[in-house]
């Protein structure tokens, strides 16, 4: 069975009718439950639950402290290449955007790594666009070989691979996979990905599972909020995480709730996802998956990140840069604009002030 079958169980579900059927009593009862069903999770994503955010927040905070303690893992992205053959309408790196295309040489990778390592960070996430010609698996592997000398944990956020290829990268030292489905709704997905290999919805949907079989330790999934109705997209993201956790018991699963940011293209979000929607999503997911990680990127503002922190966040990026080689060459083109520009010492400071332990290392390659 693949997650697609789970998706299909809800494909024709009458979301609006279900939401209408929910009253305050239902929401209150669900908030107090020990174990939430899938439909309980959906109920907490409903408009009716918006009146109960404070109660949800208290419970979410308590669960997070119990299961994760007061600590936040800090990591940072490294963009290796921005060549891309896809036409995702919402992305600055899409093939139709006229931007300078580059790929870091291994020397440049080492130079970026040195700059990052000097800040104390030990977890990195490497990113590329989708171009098997410019950034083949062999290139990624070589980069991992360089990065291994500087960092204790390396995650990848690249185009979906075959299981064998994932295994190659795991053997090379990769321990985590981040892969956003972007949109779980197949028809919308098809529309927003007009051409290129990314058009293959199912191949992307099952990629996290292939990576699990290949032995990655952590998987982070997500929907890009703003591309389609956020409530159902949040629902399917949570279901995806839960599906993977149930099937691969050893997995450390997490979600990201990324919202659309300004980028090099001209696509506008279909739907405005407000701060309170983001909060509701984080809280509902925490109640549904008490031990699931939640990763928050610098797409969000410093103010918002500081306030989201106690609601269930477990990982945050710091000192981010979304351009290839952007740490060494500040003028490079970005995939999207970041919002929280704080460097690592500023993040560390903020965490201590809020009573949280900044964690630089939470795994080490064996």
């Amino acid at each position, binding site marked *: 069975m693949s997650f697609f079958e789970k998706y299909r169980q809800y494909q024709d579900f009458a979301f609006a009718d279900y939401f209408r059927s929910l009253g305050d009593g239902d929401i209150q009862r669900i908030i107090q439950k020990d174990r939430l069903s899938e439909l309980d999770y959906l109920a907490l994503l409903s408009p009716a639950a918006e009146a109960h955010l404070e109660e949800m927040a208290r419970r979410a905070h308590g669960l997070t*402290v*119990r*299961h*994760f*303690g*007061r*600590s936040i893992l800090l990591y940072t992205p490294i963009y290796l290449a921005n060549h891309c053959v896809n036409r995702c309408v919402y992305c600055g790196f899409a093939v139709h955007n006229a931007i300078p295309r580059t790929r870091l040489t291994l020397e440049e990778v080492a130079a970026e790594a040195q700059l990052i390592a000097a800040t*104390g960070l*030990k977890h990195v996430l490497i990113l590329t666009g989708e171009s098997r010609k410019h950034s083949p698996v062999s290139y990624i592997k070589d980069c991992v070989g360089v990065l291994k000398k500087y960092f204790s944990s390396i995650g990848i956020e690249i185009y979906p691979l075959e299981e064998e290829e994932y295994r190659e990268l795991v053997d090379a030292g990769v321990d985590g996979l981040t892969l956003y489905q972007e949109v779980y709704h197949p028809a919308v997905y098809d529309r927003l990905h007009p051409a290129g290999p990314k058009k293959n919805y199912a191949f992307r949907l099952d990629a996290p599972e292939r990576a699990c079989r290949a032995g990655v*330790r952590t998987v982070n999934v997500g929907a890009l909020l703003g591309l389609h109705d956020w409530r159902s997209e949040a629902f399917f993201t949570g279901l995806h995480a839960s599906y993977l*956790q*149930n099937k691969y*018991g*050893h*997995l*450390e*699963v997490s979600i990201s709730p990324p919202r659309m940011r300004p980028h090099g293209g001209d696509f506008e979000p279909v739907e405005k996802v407000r701060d309170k929607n983001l909060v509701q999503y984080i809280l509902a997911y925490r109640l549904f998956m008490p*031990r699931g990680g939640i990763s928050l990127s610098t797409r969000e503002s410093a103010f918002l990140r500081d306030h989201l922190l106690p609601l269930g966040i477990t990982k945050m990026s710091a000192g981010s840069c979304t351009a290839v080689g952007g740490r060494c060459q500040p003028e490079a083109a970005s995939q999207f604009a970041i919002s929280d520009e704080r460097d690592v010492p500023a993040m560390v400071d903020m965490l*201590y002030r809020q*009573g*949280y*332990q*900044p*964690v*630089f*290392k*939470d*795994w*080490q390659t*064996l």
Partner: protein
Amino acid sequence: MKDDLVIGGRPLTSRLFLGSGKFPSNRFIPKVLEASGAQVVTVAMRRVDTDFAEENVLQLIPKECLLMPNTSGARTAQEAVRIARLGRAAGCGDWVKIEVISDNKYLLPDNYETIKATEILAAEGFVVLPYMSPDLMAARELARAGAAAVMPLGAPIGSNRGLKTKELIRILIEEISLPVIVDAGIGRPSEAAEAMEMGAAAVLVNTAIASARDPVAMARAFGLAVAAGRAAYLAGTGATQQYASASSPLTGFLREE
């Protein structure tokens, strides 16, 4: 009366072990150790970051205390063995708490892999304290494999649910000659006292202290509760042990016949 707990040849006066994972900063650890009197503190090797001065546990733990690295994150015996060796190489000493977890949803230990790891590490001279699900057969295997103690869970990690596995732990205490250290699930000092009254050799507490409003005060409370529970155990709790010293105080007279 001297009532040291001796593990791996090391006498311990405190029967409270501390977990270190969930504090707002590792700088809490020395204060919590001091307040509770605990001498053994377990630290996840995966988190040990010797480059990060403020959070380097190796520097923060007082010399008279014992650091017990744990293999958190290990999915198999092999991974646990590798993590344990990394710990020893990093200067964390010979003690190791084996944690092999292949279920991240409930964080339940994998007894089978744990036994395998224990066997390998004990043979390499480690003082092995395996975290386990309280199962008698597995505990016997761990003893045979060379464990220095067994650490059954009272309830799933982080659940603060108390001694849900009490009856199974009681059986381990009765049947296994190794120290039985109740690890995980203890949410309040009264539950720690309860485990000690029952005859547990020690208890390990993390979440309940780290998530308290005042962790240092809670640490002190746990120290007292563990000492009280132990004293009660030694004093002989409950009707069944009232006459522990005489062999048959109520029917012994029959021998006179």
